[in-house]
């Protein structure tokens, strides 16, 4: 129960980061299912995951600058 609360809290705190992780994993799954299990899946997975951190930080920075 506590673990579920923590996970819900994570999504609530940072929906862009969690959303980015989900998209990256979905893209990797689609690529592996379509037979691209090596570089074609590896590189987008890693790049999209880091992209989700950048997206989350850029939103935070924009929020701070507006304030």
């Amino acid at each position, binding site marked *: 129960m506590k673990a579920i609360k923590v996970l819900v809290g994570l999504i609530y705190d940072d929906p862009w980061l969690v959303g980015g992780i989900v998209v990256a994993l979905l893209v*990797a799954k689609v690529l592996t299912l379509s037979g691209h*299990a090596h570089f074609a899946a590896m590189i987008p*997975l890693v790049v999209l995951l*880091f992209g989700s951190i950048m997206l989350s*930080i850029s939103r935070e920075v924009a929020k*701070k600058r507006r304030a």
Partner: protein
Amino acid sequence: MNWYVAGASFLGTAVEFVEALTIVLAVLLTKGWKTAMTGALLAVVVLVALVLIVGYPLVHAVQLPVVQFIVGLLMLLFGMRWLRKAILRYTGYKAVHDEGKAFAEELEKQKGRGSKGSGIDGFGALTAFNGVFLEGLESVFIVITVGLSAHSLVSAVWGSVVALILVVLAGVAFRSPLQAVPENTLKFVVGVLLSSFGTFWAGEGLGVAWLDQDVSILFVAGFFLVASLLYVAWLRAGRRKLMMSETQSVSS
């Protein structure tokens, strides 16, 4: 004793134990030894119970990709959050965490409640548990498959026990020098490490065929490290430019 089997088991499980040690050390340095040990020991208990109850068929009974995906996803969620916070602190967009102040506040809170508190962080314990459980499970698979294929399970077990002892000793030796590293640097590195392990495991669970297997973790960690440092430099430059233009507009 079959020395080839013992050697193969030693090398295979040593890699897994080093990976587990990295995660336990990361939790130990950021959340304290109680949290790290609780998670790690709980994982060992669950693993031993699993081996005793299920025995050899464990190799077929557990769906490793499912476990890898769940553990990888959790590591990604925790690790990337830490990395994000550390980047924001490096760039000055978030205040650097004052550990001394936080400790004093927590102490006051506990005094107010009249309780000592367990001192165990649920997040950290779960991370240590996940790391030790998954790596331990992979080690059990290595010992069983290497041991059974060469009909020398005892040699395989001995190989892995020696690997475990050596890795634990290495962990004890490295703990003190690592504790001297500044807090945000530590959290930055831990964030990079957990994100890399999480990426690797979640990818494995999804069926990604990593180049050179576990060695890929180093490449992923290298990418996250370099990309994060470049991003920090870019954000700092942007902040500096903004502050300069604000100063100029105020003076004019």
